[in-house]
């Protein structure tokens, strides 16, 4: 078992490294894209000095964050202060572990599936790690010993946990349809039949809204609402610690987009194409690349949606946010779940 | 299943009753009606008309004894509700919520009355106790109440942990949660099995507030608003003992040594309970606290039913619960009527309110175990059920001698009421209250003179 085991470990380590790197790059360019999209929507130019079309801007930003002075406020709880962003970043990196990026490709004599961990509770894993994300924010905000930070942290915490409920229930309907908790299984089930967006439009909407809330994006960005709370939970942060919070947010956006694409839009499925036939004609490896591109394009679209919404819809008031989560989405999700169950059972028999 | 459903529904109804019924009297009426509904459903269950029967064969069963126990607890509950009908608004204004909590804890009792599975027993106990944590802290503006809630909660969840460990160990040894299987399993992991039992017994001791796990009880019963400590001391404790008895009846006694150890354990628990409870109660200045300690003592007496679990001891426990319940409810009602909780608060009550004083006297005599009150026959039955084993004589006599101590602090109340002069105006009771007090007294005496009344009632319920 030993050599096989170690090679597997090596393979997974490589995959993990690639995924983290990829996520970082995507996150970096998301910031650029964000500014570009914003500029486009507001009829401006956006960043255009560093590199062609400002393409080097994210690198410059990153470098700036790297070399900035690090300030830890006097009254802060030092350890937790550092732990906050660290945790946020680590967890953001870890969310993607169960996502199937594409079908397997051949590497020598073995088939490598670009999915870091194909665990049978993939679903729950995502939910679990997502909800852990709130710890980073909470710890950071509390440790800062700043009133704005604390407010921001509290808001973040209650917002994230509030929206987790409808999200969880919305996901249950997917489970009912697919009957498995493995993300790979869900994708495969969609490849054969309809995408879940067709079966679950309401569930999709709920999930989308919740994803916005979970990533603290506008219109739900109350935890860092700069005109109310300065910077919210990261008011006191500087240097790379601040960078981690920002990066974590963008990584989360990316991963959320991937998850939305995976769950509701067929994952790496290429629409209107018979995958099996295509695989025969162009070979496994090319197919994997196509699949990956398919997923990536879908994800990019959703990243765009995230930005689009940010610059279109104004920020909610906090009570409106809570009302939406608890009073609208939660019953809606429950009803959706019941109806889905009824319909499926009805057609099954 | 009937009783579980009706009690749960009652709880739900009360959750929403507060939005509809604003008048507290209506809430009381509703509570009584729901109790009646619970009793009716229980009677149907006894008759075999059970909703969803057989759907959950590994979880619940209809045990006539426990269903009857449930009926009696509901009857005591009716008495309790009517007696305290003006007291529910004393801790706070959310009367309907209090009732909801009470009825939800009754759901726990219903589960306990029908489990045949440790899993469900655990659930029942939790459903029973979690609302009580909230009830203990119901008087939000009073620090004492909050403190009681904190203590009760911490210690209660602690004992839950112990109980779960016991259940897990028993499960590990026997491979099942079913009571029947636990009694008749292949004897592989003896040490784990008995360790589990000891833990289970300890945690049950906790739930019924028996030494060495009784330390929380006085503080909690003292701090909790009087209305609710009355509930906790009577009905909840009765349900706890019902569970304890059912649980211990599936304890497997494989050898003489095990039997001996079991007896030593029980004797130790009982003697410790009686000594600690009595001597602590002696030096209390507050009657409420004294009653709290005395409830520990009474629990010690109730433990006698576990020595030899038979028809007789089961009936004795039932009888004890009822008689103790009625007496305690009357006493706690009196506590809410006097100004102070201390003995001085009772001074001259015989003049101030003869009916109340008379009822309290009879209740105290019943608790002391004086003949012509049901308390005597309760003690008599429960002690006699333990007497199958000759070596228990010393234990019984010791318990009785310690009971003399308990009489000492009971009669201190009588002395205050009748032999001392009190200040203040006379206490006016409404007609219904007086009637209920008299009813309680009559019940106490009637059961004390003719104990078969209870048996007749049970027979009636079983054969309508």
């Amino acid at each position, binding site marked *: 078992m030993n050599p096989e085991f170690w090679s597997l470990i090596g393979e997974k380590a490589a995959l993990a490294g690639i995924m983290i790197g990829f996520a970082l790059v995507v996150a970096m360019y998301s910031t650029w894209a964000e500014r570009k999209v914003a500029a486009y929507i507001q009829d401006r130019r956006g960043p255009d000095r560093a590199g062609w079309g400002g393409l080097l801007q994210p690198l410059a930003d990153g470098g700036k964050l790297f070399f900035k002075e690090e300030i830890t406020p006097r009254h802060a709880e030092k350890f937790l202060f550092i732990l906050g962003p660290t945790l946020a970043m680590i967890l953001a990196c870890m969310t993607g572990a169960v996502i199937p990026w594409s079908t397997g490709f051949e590497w020598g004599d073995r088939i490598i599936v670009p999915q870091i961990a194909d665990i049978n509770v993939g679903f729950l894993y995502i939910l679990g790690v997502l909800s852990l994300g709130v710890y980073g924010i909470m710890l950071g905000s509390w440790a800062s010993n700043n009133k704005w930070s604390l407010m921001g942290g509290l808001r973040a915490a209650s917002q994230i946990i509030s929206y987790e409920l409808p999200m969880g229930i919305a996901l249950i309907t997917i489970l009912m349809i697919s009957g498995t908790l493995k993300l790979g299984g869900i994708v495969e089930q969609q490849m054969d039949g309809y995408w879940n967006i067709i079966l679950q439009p309401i569930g999709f909407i709920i999930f989308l809204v919740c994803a916005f809330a979970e990533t603290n994006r506008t219109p739900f960005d109350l935890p860092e609402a700069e005109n109310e709370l300065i910077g919210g939970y990261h008011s006191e942060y500087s240097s790379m610690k601040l960078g981690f919070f920002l990066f974590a947010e963008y990584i989360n956006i990316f991963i959320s987009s991937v998850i939305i694409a995976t769950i509701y839009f067929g994952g790496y499925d290429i629409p209107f194409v018979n995958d099996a036939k295509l695989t025969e004609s162009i070979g496994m490896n090319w197919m994997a690349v196509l699949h990956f591109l398919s997923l990536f394009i879908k994800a990019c679209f959703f990243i765009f949606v995230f930005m689009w919404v940010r610059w279109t819809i104004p920020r909610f008031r906090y009570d409106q946010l809570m009302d939406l989560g608890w009073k609208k989405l939660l019953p809606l999700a429950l009803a959706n779940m019941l109806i889905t169950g009824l319909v499926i059972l009805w057609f099954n028999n | 299943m009937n009783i579980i459903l009706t009690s749960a529904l009652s709880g739900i109804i009360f959750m929403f009753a507060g939005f509809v019924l604003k008048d507290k009297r209506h809430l009381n009426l509703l509570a009584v009606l729901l109790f009646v509904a619970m009793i009716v459903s229980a009677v149907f269950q006894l008759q075999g008309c059970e909703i969803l029967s057989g759907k959950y064969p590994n979880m619940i069963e209809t045990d006539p004894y426990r269903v009857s126990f449930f009926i009696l607890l509901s009857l005591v509950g009716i008495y309790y509700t009517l007696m305290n009908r003006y007291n529910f608004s004393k801790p706070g204004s959310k009367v309907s919520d209090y009732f909801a909590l009470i009825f939800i804890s009754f759901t726990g009792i219903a589960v306990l009355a029908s489990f045949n599975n440790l899993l469900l027993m655990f659930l029942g106990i939790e459903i029973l106790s979690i609302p009580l944590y909230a009830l203990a802290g119901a008087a939000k503006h009073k620090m004492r109440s909050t403190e009681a809630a904190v203590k009760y909660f911490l210690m209660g969840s602690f004992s839950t942990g*112990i109980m779960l460990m016991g259940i897990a160990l028993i499960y590990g040894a026997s491979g099942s949660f079913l009571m029947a299987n636990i009694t008749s399993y292949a004897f592989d992991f003896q040490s*784990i099995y008995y360790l589990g039992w000891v833990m289970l017994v300890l945690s049950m001791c906790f739930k019924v507030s028996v030494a060495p796990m009784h330390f929380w009880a006085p503080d909690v019963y003292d701090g909790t608003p009087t209305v609710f400590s009355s509930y906790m001391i009577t009905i909840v404790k009765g349900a706890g003992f019902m569970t304890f008895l059912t649980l211990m009846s599936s304890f497997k006694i494989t050898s003489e040594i095990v039997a001996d150890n079991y007896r030593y354990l029980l004797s130790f628990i009982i003697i410790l309970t009686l000594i600690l409870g009595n001597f602590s109660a002696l030096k209390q200045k507050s009657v409420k606290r004294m009653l709290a300690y005395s409830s520990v003592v009474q629990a010690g007496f109730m433990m006698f039913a576990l020595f030899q679990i038979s028809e007789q001891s089961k009936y004795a426990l039932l009888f004890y619960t009822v008689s103790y319940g009625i007496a305690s409810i009357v006493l706690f009602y009196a506590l809410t009527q006097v100004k102070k909780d201390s003995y001085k608060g009772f001074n001259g009550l015989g003049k101030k309110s003869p009916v109340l004083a008379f009822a309290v006297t009879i209740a105290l005599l019943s608790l002391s175990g004086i003949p012509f009150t049901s308390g005597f026959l309760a003690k008599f039955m429960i002690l006699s059920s333990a007497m199958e084993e000759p070596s228990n004589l010393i234990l019984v006599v010791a318990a009785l001698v310690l009971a003399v101590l308990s009489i000492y602090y009971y009669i201190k109340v009588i002395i205050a009421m009748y032999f001392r002069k009190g200040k203040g105006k006379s206490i006016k009771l409404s007609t219904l209250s007086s009637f209920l007090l008299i009813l309680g007294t009559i019940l106490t005496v009637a059961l004390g003179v003719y104990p078969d009344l209870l048996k007749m009632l049970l027979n009636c319920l079983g054969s309508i």
Partner: protein
Amino acid sequence: MIPISYYLFLSLALFSIGMIGVMTRRNIIIMLMCVELMLNSVNLLLVAFSKMHHAQNLGTDVGIDGQMLVLFIMVVAAAEVAIGLSIMILFYRKMYNVDVKSLNRLKH
């Protein structure tokens, strides 16, 4: 296959840590967490036992109920935490601390 005794000792150790914590610690929150530790050690043990019994009787339902209890314990623990935290907030808002030493109004 890890022997059952390992699980047993591990969970008993965790359980004891929790128990000792409840008895010795003075901070109510920490006591609550110790209680949770106790419950979770039981969960661990139950799952282990459940697996063991299942392995002994393959192809049957034996051992399923152990895991069922774990789910129930989780629910109950959540309910307890909910009520416990509420009580603690009530307490904290009066005393501005969560120390059991402040629980002294009912001593005589």
